[in-house]
């Protein structure tokens, strides 16, 4: 093995070692910190609590349109899907029956509203 080849091999190994160190640094030691995140990145428990807040407000004002507008704040998915996901999470994590009922009421309201619109658009 010539000296040149040996140097090339060691140089490549050094690059690989540096690459590994750089990846470790960039992912583990100092990953990019997101300080200005959007609500859609929130952890599911926080999303569920937000859905619960919307449900509490809906119970108070019975304003479905406003509830749907509020739900779009935390997720770009359809509002009913957002509420259903929150209900599933709440059931798995033993939320109180009162809170579950509030979220169920909101889900029902959104569902009936979408049914109503479907019927209207179908000319029924």
């Amino acid at each position, binding site marked *: 093995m010539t000296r040149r080849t040996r140097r090339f091999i060691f140089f490549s190994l*050094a690059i690989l070692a540096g690459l590994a160190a750089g*990846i470790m640094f960039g992912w583990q030691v100092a990953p990019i910190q997101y300080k200005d995140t*959007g609500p859609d990145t929130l952890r599911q428990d926080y999303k569920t609590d937000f859905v619960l807040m919307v449900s509490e407000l809906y119970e108070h004002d019975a304003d479905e349109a406003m509830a749907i507008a509020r739900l779009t704040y935390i997720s770009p998915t359809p509002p009913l899907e957002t509420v259903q996901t929150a209900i599933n999470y709440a059931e798995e994590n033993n939320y109180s029956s009162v809170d579950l009922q509030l979220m169920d009421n909101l889900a029902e309201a959104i569902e009936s509203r979408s049914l109503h619109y479907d019927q209207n658009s179908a000319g029924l």
Partner: protein
Amino acid sequence: MMNEDTQEILQPQTPIKKHGPWYLLTGLILGFLLGVIYTWWINPVIYESTNPASLREDFKDTYRVTIAQVFAATGDLDRAARRLEILEDENPIYLLGAQAQRALAKGEEEQAHDLALLASELQAVTAGSLTQPTPLATDTMQLIPTQTLPALTPVP
């Protein structure tokens, strides 16, 4: 064996350069930079489970006003306080007040009312807990016998 026609060609002695391990350091630095570029720009850590404290300020404002609206609707101060805690604001009462002012300036009177209401309720609770005297635990206090001087004058 040299004769007149032939001459010894003297090749200049090239000194063997001792580069040392610098090329290894160069490789390490190059690799490290490539790694950082990859992890920061090409494939950065994606945060999918953030907490409300990391939200952008305008999203935090929406979150805060929703908490205030729920409090105005339900009157559950304990729950509102716990929800505000997760925003990790340094001075939540001040921020509620400031946001109420901004809402009022924008003509959103109902939001301003709800924010101000929550701020004042929290302020009242905080002030109450500060001014309330802490009762002395006299029942559990151990009386320590102390040596007292004998009275010089008889007590009538």
